[in-house]
């Protein structure tokens, strides 16, 4: 409990600081806020921030490292808070550039937040690098990167070639995107350009539910419904095999899950394109679809590409649907009605399996993870380049 109390106390102090700062500076200016450099609330914020933020950091770091008991922390926190408050108060006078200070402060907070992404990346790489190193000590990298067979064994002598997994990943993701991009994009266009507000107000959230259905439901849907259907009505009549699980099954079902990623985000972006652009095109006698295709979509392109990238990312990272829909067999082939599997699936299965945790069969999960990281990095760089090239900035 004491940590909670400390937390609340600090926040209370900050709130008090806010009011003290405000009234202090107002009275210093003789009650006339116009004589102040900044709005009175900025003086308040200045004090509140100096009181709370350093202390909160202290508490956060403390609760991780726990060098001593909560009482020590409480005392220390109060000292820091008081010091911050005193410092901020001492600087409070009508000429003090409170807004600039507050904004600089906020700006640093913003920078800090964006650094979390970098830190996460570093964390991911670091947490996998070591074990990846261990893996390559036990398994030749040539065989890993260029091997075309994936067959881990308990007793050693596994063949751990990544190529069939890469192929499966690309193939399944491709099909998933081939399903979700057209459906999602058309849905987004319809919602933002054609649909009545009423339809839009319920259809959009409804479609978003698709993103919230646990993937296991999709997996079972693939396994029980879609897989046998594709097998009986397509694969067998076409002579393309009789596998119940296939790239197609997983791709289709994953595509369904990804629809809202494309549709909802794109819809927001399309909706944000200024009406004047649509008017311009309509005024020239273009049909609504021409307006959309030639004016609105190009203007919304960066956002749409972002949405598609997000969908692609989900496709690459998905496990359950692939396991249940596409199976666990790592192989390279062109037949979409054959079972295949993806890198992600194998990362999960090797990590959660029963193999020796220090053996290459388990460690390969880390190498797979890191390789996938590098592959997607490459794809993202290409995407960034493409967006830059085709971006159309309105106004």
């Amino acid at each position, binding site marked *: *409990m004491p940590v909670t109390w400390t937390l609340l106390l600090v926040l209370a102090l900050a709130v008090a600081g806010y009011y003290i700062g405000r009234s202090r500076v107002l009275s210093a200016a003789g009650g006339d806020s116009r004589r102040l450099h900044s709005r009175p609330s900025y003086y308040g914020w200045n004090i509140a921030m100096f009181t709370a933020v350093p202390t909160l950091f202290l508490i956060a770091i403390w609760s*991780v490292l726990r060098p001593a008991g909560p009482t020590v922390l409480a005392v220390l926190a109060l000292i820091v808070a008081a010091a911050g408050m005193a410092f901020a108060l001492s600087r409070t006078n009508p000429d003090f550039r409170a807004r600039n200070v507050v*904004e600089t402060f906020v*700006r640093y907070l*913003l920078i800090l937040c*964006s650094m*979390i*992404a970098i830190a*996460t990346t570093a*964390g*991911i790489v670091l*947490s*996998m690098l070591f074990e990846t190193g261990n893996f390559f000590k036990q398994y030749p990298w040539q065989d890993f990167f260029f091997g075309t067979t994936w067959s881990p064994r308990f007793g050693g002598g596994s063949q751990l070639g990544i190529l069939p997994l890469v192929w499966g990943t690309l193939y399944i993701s491709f099909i998933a995107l081939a399903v979700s991009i*057209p459906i*999602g*994009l*058309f*849905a987004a266009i*319809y919602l933002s*350009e054609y649909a009545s507000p009423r339809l839009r107000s319920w*259809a959009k*959230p*409804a*479609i*978003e*539910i*698709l*993103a*919230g*259905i646990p993937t*296991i*439901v*999709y997996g079972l*849907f693939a396994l029980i419904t879609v897989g046998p259907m594709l097998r009986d009505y397509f694969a067998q009549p076409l002579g393309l095999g009789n596998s119940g699980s296939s790239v197609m099954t997983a791709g289709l079902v994953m595509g*369904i899950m990804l629809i809202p990623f494309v*549709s*909802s*985000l794109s819809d*927001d*972006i399309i*909706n*944000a394109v200024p009406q004047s652009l649509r008017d311009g095109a309509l005024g020239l006698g273009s049909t*609504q*679809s*021409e307006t959309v295709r030639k004016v609105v979509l190009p203007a919304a392109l*960066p956002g749409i590409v*972002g949405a598609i990238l*997000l969908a*692609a*990312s989900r496709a690459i*990272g998905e496990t359950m649907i692939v396991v249940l829909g596409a199976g666990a067999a790592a192989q390279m082939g062109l037949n979409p009605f054959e079972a295949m599997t993806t890198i*992600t699936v194998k*990362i999960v299965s090797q*990590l959660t399996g029963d193999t020796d945790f220090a053996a290459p069969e388990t460690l390969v999960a*880390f190498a797979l993870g890191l390789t*996938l990281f590098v592959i997607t*990095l490459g794809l993202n760089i290409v*995407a*960034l380049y493409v967006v830059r090239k085709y971006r159309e*900035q309105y106004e």
Partner: protein
Amino acid sequence: MTDATFPAAGASPDKSSLLVADERTRKRNAAERRFRAYGLGAILISIALLVILMFTILTGGIGSFRQTYVEIPVTLDAAQLDKSGNRDPEEIRKVLTLTYGKLIETALQKAITDNGITIDGLTAADVSNMISKEAPAELRNQVLANPELVGQTIDARLLSNGRVDGYYKGRVTMETAARDSNTSVAQLQLADALKDKNLLATEWNWSFLTKPDASDQRPEAAGVGVAILGSLYMMLVVLVLAVPIGVAASIYLEEFAPKNRLTDIIEVNISNLAAVPSIVFGILGLAAFINFAGLPQSAPIVGGLVLTLMTLPTIIIATRAALKAVPPSIRDAALGVGASKMQSVFHHVLPLAMPGILTGTIIGLAQALGETAPLLLIGMVAFVRNFPGAPPEGLFDPASALPVQVYNWTQRADPAFVERASGAIIVLLVFLLCMNLLAIFLRRKFERRW
């Protein structure tokens, strides 16, 4: 500039009627109709798929909200429960569930004879199996909470076994029972007989929402209580951390950061993080939060942090796209009246970008709420019976989560768990809807065209 002769091409614009479309217009209109049809088709397909999925979930899971109980008088025999006879709670505590099981068995036997039920081939095992293994534990808890009951005969409401329950939900039939080693036709006939005597009923099942998970032998007792709390705690953490941090990061990158190599790297980095499989975030969470920072295993706080990191890219990508879509003239207008960059962003740009931010939040949270893989490695895919405490301390107690419950239950051998899993999915979706409703409401409020 007088050389401008105009117009250049064909001088006689043919005065076609507005009501008659010419060839080209017909084609364009056909294209328009096709386009529109594609759009409508896309929506209909999505909605149809949603309906199908919802239908499967609902039909599969609605059963878990009803449960079959046997209601018979049970004599809490003092001789067995309190041998010393002084009603000392410590003494009563020593009596194990096994004893209570026997009491129930006797009570059921008695009820059968009292009501004059006779069934061919009914074995003692059939009778004792009739009642869930959870029932003795519940009875024991009841007695421990109120030692006065010892020696009395109470009307107990006892969970029936999963197969009997399944019988009343259509999952088990006489035919399957004949083959099933865990039930028998005689047992089901007994259930029917009890039902005739109003001793057995299928009722609304609150305990599915309030009780914790149960082991593989007691599907009828399993509930999502702990999972709901765990998910709630995790979502709180995600909401409190991911949304502000994500929005803040996007604001910095989109509005303040100088456009240079470094920001390009950050940008690529973030979209790349979105492509990192969720289990890798579990690896990171295990390494960073548990092994390095020393946070406890199986705790919602760690789950929340991992999910936060996982959702951040989604929120950032959506937010950045939304910020990008705000026309620069709005920013100019604010700057022109002497607003600072920060003010122009917070007062004008952000509200306009809100729908996109909220969409990102909805999708990010939906993903976080339904994710199991990252929780695997940080110990949240677990069997947890004890409820976590109130936050913030409760954030550090072991808990499970809704998707974990679904994942676990779909792996269990007893088919009764399939129904439970679908039930948990329903709960999860309701949970998601509740979360989304606010966001959707806000989004509609902020939506406008300019």
